[in-house]
């Protein structure tokens, strides 16, 4: 895999990689210079479509196809919203781009804006990444000063306004319509689709929401061509992807890999995580951020890091946030931690999610307190059944998928907590389980 080009992380280790000077010194903004005035937006959209680049935020929708959904004849403004609201547990990859190569994301965003004929771009960064808001703002200021943003970019006649917007602590704003509502100055509650944002989005205007990592791949595709991109990875998963790997490992971190690489190589490979920490054995892995179904150790050893192989294993690539779990971790406790996350982050709009995440959290909580009831696993499944597919966005599904897969694959740990006979139990939720969702 050593011969795979670094498309997203080439600059991460350079000194002052976040500055315009270093970015331009090593060829940065050449894709933009080669595009403006020389390539039409249609040609650029076509190139990205042909590259097969898929959305790296979690959904995996082809980026070029999404751009093609923007109606060009409405007379309304068109917006590009950069989703830097990275909040999926296990995911910390966009953070590295924002920190070590903000200009890569900015160049990709300018190119994407140009491709959809947008003159207005917002970068929505999660509120907790406060220092990255400063970092990106400084990079945007540099780009304005160099004539790479603003009116008549590089004398091409194309103009783009870019605003860095700080979120304020809400996981749900990573959902694209939640992000749009938030940016409109509302609660970040997702909207019913259709209409899709590409047609009716921010301020009812055509809007594209793209993940940071998706946009960061665009300059390389422009420079090297779609064919070079599809030559990397697999047929259905072209290109490279950043994986953020966490857990009891020798060397956790963010790694760029060609899609299709075995997951075991990422965890045990010398160039990557170098295996489990001393004395720890692999027990399980959540490959794509906490919202996707968990893999057992055996499944982890046979899966590849690409959309199709992970789908065959009953899970998803998601955001590429791989959480590696060692033999010492109690799966019921870990599920409880995840469920309290979804309980806390449910926006409260849809009843199945608002109530369901709370019930899942409290039922697992009472199991852990030794106050479970014999039919609690059936009850959990009953609640899951009522949640999945019954809500406006996928947050409910994101809670159900770990819940179901944890119980299915580590059933003995759950069953060990079930009492044999029903008896009246006084259960008082712990502080965290009793928290009301916002």
């Amino acid at each position, binding site marked *: 895999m050593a011969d795979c080009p670094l498309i997203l992380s080439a600059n991460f280790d350079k000194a002052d990689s976040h500055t315009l000077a270093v970015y331009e010194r090593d060829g940065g903004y050449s894709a933009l210079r080669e595009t403006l005035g020389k390539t039409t937006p249609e040609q650029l959209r076509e190139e990205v479509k042909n590259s097969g680049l898929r959305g790296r935020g979690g959904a995996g929708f082809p980026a070029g196809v999404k751009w093609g959904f923007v109606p060009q004849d409405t007379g309304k403004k068109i917006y590009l919203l950069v989703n830097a609201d*990275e*909040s999926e547990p296990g995911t910390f990859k966009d953070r590295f781009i924002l920190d070590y190569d903000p200009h890569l994301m900015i160049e990709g965003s300018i190119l994407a804006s140009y491709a959809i004929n947008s003159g207005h771009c917002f970068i929505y960064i999660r509120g907790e990444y406060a220092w990255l808001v400063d970092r990106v703002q400084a990079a945007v200021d540099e780009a304005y000063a160099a004539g790479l943003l603003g009116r008549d970019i590089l004398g091409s006649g194309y103009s783009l306004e870019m605003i860095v917007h700080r979120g304020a602590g809400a996981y749900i704003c990573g959902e694209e319509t939640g992000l749009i509502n938030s940016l409109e*100055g509302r609660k970040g509650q997702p909207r019913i689709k259709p209409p899709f944002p590409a047609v009716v989005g921010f301020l009812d205007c055509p809007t594209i929401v793209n993940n940071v990592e998706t946009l960061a791949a665009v300059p390389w595709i422009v420079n090297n061509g779609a064919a070079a991109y599809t030559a990397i990875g697999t047929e259905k998963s072209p290109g490279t992807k950043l994986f953020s790997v966490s857990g009891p490992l020798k060397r956790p971190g963010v790694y760029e890999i060609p899609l299709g690489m075995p997951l075991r190589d990422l965890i045990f490979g010398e160039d990557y995580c170098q295996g489990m920490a001393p004395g720890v054995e692999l027990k399980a892995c959540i490959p794509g951020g906490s919202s996707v179904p968990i893999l057992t150790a055996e499944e982890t050893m046979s899966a590849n890091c690409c959309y199709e192989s992970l789908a065959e294993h009953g899970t998803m690539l998601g955001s590429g946030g791989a959480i590696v779990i060692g033999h010492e971790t109690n799966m019921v406790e*870990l599920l409880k931690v995840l469920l309290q996350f979804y309980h*806390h982050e449910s926006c409260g709009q849809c009843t199945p999610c608002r109530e369901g995440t709370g019930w899942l959290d409290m039922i697992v909580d009472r199991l852990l307190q030794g106050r479970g009831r014999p039919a609690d696993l059936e009850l959990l499944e009953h609640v899951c059944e009522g949640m999945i597919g019954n809500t406006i966005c996928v947050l409910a599904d994101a809670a159900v998928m770990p819940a179901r897969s944890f119980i299915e694959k580590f059933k003995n740990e759950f069953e060990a907590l079930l009492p044999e006979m029903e008896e009246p139990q006084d259960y008082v939720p712990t502080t965290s389980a009793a928290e009301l969702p916002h």
Partner: protein
Amino acid sequence: MSDQSSEPKIDLADVPGDGETSVATDDSAWAFSPEREQRYQEIVRRYPTNFSAIMPTLWLCQEEWGWLRPSIPEWVAERLDVPLSRVYEIITFYTMYYTEDPGRYNLQVCRTASCHIMGAQKIVSHIKERLGVETNQTTDDGMFRLEEVECLGACGMSPMMQVGKVYHENLTVQKVDELLEKWRNDG
């Protein structure tokens, strides 16, 4: 309304986290520092609607005064000419806008997946013991507050906590002790 000419009626220098709250008695008591007033004007000029400008304006207020003190929401609503309910919609939905004093050092320990696996609860228990507080409590001297928060995106550097703008990563109990000691000395 324009606050450019009005004199600030509170002493900005000693406001954030000083324990005693200076409560403005009328809306005109609040005024940004000149630098923040300039940033505010730019926000209003660049954002497409004033509703969109509520979040960044609240951030400016929190930077200026440490937290959203009573009557600041009213002042923001008036300055942006938006209904007060829309300002409260934002303040109550998002977790990072404070309507009470978060303390001098607000220790926000991540408790989600990877941090949990890597021992976040050990860190939380240690802080509780050291400071004699429970989660969501502030020490009697107003110096430290302990919070358990959801995933902060530092999973590979877990366990971790955020204090102010800074992420303290790969935490151990020793590291926590050193930080607490340092902050005590810094006051």
